[in-house]
């Protein structure tokens, strides 16, 4: 414990450095997600490198010394964060039931005292109420999110605690009426406990509600911003493209910006799925930045073709050829159905004769035609004075020719 105080820590570190040249780094003080109660003892033991049993024993001994251990436990609980992780934190000890049992046990001397009279009645009422309320609050706030227990367990525990509190109230009223207890105000204690117990449910509800409200506000703000940007920036970008001419530098930049902005506005936070059409769209955007070209990608149907597949690679090669050699307007059309996928890449360049392409130029022959042949598909290159069209077709094995 002495090592925890800020002034002692650097001193200890310095001493350690002198003794051992390379001290292993201490694991950070964090409570594990799977804990017995709250994970304080285990986290502390890991941080200090001491056995868990010793730390637990220390806590208990300190708790007996005027409650210092309890205070320290609460302090660590409040300040040490949970270890990072995905699954919700869980505790193995049935804390809520233990506290409920304590409260129930307290009822026995209480009943005895209310009938016979005697000292200590006030203390027992307070302790019993406190235990019942603590059990209920624990069930509502901590066990409810615990996957091992869940909301149903919370309801059962809270009902049991409510019964305990009602009994405490009845006994206190009984003792007060008979005049065995001077302080009539004592009946207020279990009533207040009952109120706390019931309202602890509201805390969870309120938490959920405010979380949802935050989310909704964020979405509304986003929609508002999208509408505003749509009206202003997108219009301006369209105008720039319009005035700049289809393949001018300015128009290409404006188009790339428009595409980016639009993807952000409308696709939102959803991760971009890497299907064929999305991939080719992204590739088209990249090509437009590097070459004086405008590529229109149109997709119809649903394609199961993956972006990493051979068809995508061949299509990218065809688009690159079109951008590099033809420029201007390039149309890409992807149609995916049950039978396979068709990709058309069309440019309006001067065209070329496949036979005149030197055999050392691998682009068309290897990257496009050869690739598709290995895949069992076909690649057709039609070239004329008004442009070139590459048609890639990959049929799935089970399906034959499609209409």
């Amino acid at each position: 414990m002495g090592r925890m105080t800020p002034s002692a820590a650097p001193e200890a570190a310095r001493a350690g450095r002198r003794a051992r040249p390379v001290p292993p780094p201490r694991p950070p003080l964090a409570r594990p997600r799977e804990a017995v109660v709250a994970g304080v003892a285990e986290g502390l033991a890991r941080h200090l490198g001491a056995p868990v049993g010793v730390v637990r024993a220390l806590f208990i001994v300190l708790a007996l010394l005027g409650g210092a251990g309890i205070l320290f436990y609460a302090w660590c609980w409040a300040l040490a964060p949970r270890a990072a992780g995905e699954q919700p934190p869980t505790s193995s000890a049935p804390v809520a039931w233990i506290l409920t049992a304590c409260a129930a046990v307290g009822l026995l001397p209480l009943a005895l005292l209310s009938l016979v009279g005697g000292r200590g009645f006030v203390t027992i009422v307070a302790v019993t109420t406190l235990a019942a309320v603590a059990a209920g609050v624990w069930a509502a706030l901590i066990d409810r999110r615990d996957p091992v227990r869940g909301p149903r367990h919370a309801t059962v525990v809270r009902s049991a605690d409510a019964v305990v509190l009602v009994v405490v109230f009845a006994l206190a009223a009984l003792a007060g009426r008979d005049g065995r207890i001077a302080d009539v105000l004592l009946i207020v204690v279990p009533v207040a406990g009952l109120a706390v117990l019931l309202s602890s449910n509201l805390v969870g509800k309120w938490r959920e509600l405010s979380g949802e409200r935050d989310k909704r506000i964020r979405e509304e703000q986003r929609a508002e911003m999208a509408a505003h940007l749509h009206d202003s920036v997108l219009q301006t970008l369209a105008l720039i493209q319009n005035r700049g001419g289809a393949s001018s530098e300015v128009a290409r930049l404006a188009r790339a910006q428009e595409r980016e902005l639009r993807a952000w506005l409308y696709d939102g936070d959803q991760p971009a799925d890497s299907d064929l059409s999305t991939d080719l769209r992204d590739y088209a955007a990249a090509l437009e930045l590097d070459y004086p070209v405008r590529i229109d990608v149109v997709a119809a149907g649903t394609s199961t073709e993956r972006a990493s597949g051979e068809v995508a690679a061949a299509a990218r090669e065809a688009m690159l050829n079109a951008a590099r050699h033809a420029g201007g307007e390039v149309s890409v059309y992807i149609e995916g159905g049950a039978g396979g996928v068709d990709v058309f890449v069309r440019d309006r360049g001067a065209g070329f004769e496949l036979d005149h392409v030197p055999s050392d130029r691998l682009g068309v022959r290897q990257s496009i035609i050869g690739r598709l042949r290995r895949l069992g598909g076909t690649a057709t290159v039609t070239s004329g004075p008004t442009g070139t069209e590459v048609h890639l077709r990959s049929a799935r094995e089970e399906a034959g020719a499609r209409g």
Partner: protein
Amino acid sequence: MADGIRVVIVDDHSIFRSGLRSDLDDTVVVVGEAADVPSAIAVVAETRPDVVLLDVHLPGGSGGGGTGGTEATGGEDVIRASSSVPTRFLALSVSDAAEDVVRVIRAGARGYITKGSSGVEVSRAVRAVADGDAVFSPRLAGFVLDAFGAVAGETATVDDELDRLSTREQEVMRLIARGYAYKEVASALFISIKTVETHVSAVLRKLQLSSRHELTAWASERRLL
């Protein structure tokens, strides 16, 4: 100039209106401009233009057109309010949100082009619409193929079936989606341009009249047209 196509530009951004105005070629005469729904309805009723270039999103609309949309697409309101005027509408949109575009087309627009299109492209589209043809962008064609189940292999058996496309219509739509101009579609299919236009108009009619629920479902699901 007097026998040019008379056009009204409706857009709430004055800078866009003036830009478009100077970009349009000589066959097109701009006879009026409007910035919101009420003034657009008034200008259209007064000037009775051949074609209205209409922004899909306009201020002053009734809000969502009764379909519960979050954003008011004022363009739809203008078309509905101007049904008594024999004018044709060409939708201009900066947005690719398919539900908005499809809504305006179903309200009666003869086609749709993006605001990024050049003045030459817009002029060509205006002439096509003025001649009674439909203007399809590749994206709209792709959407139509999707929405009418053509990709899944559904084909209309009867010519006047509203919920599916005929084989020929599918071929035309596929070529348009691949970026072919009408002229190129015609030579690829060995038919006349007039026949291509007939097919496109038939598809537009189906798009406007069909009750296929996929039309709206697809549109809102995909966001991109």
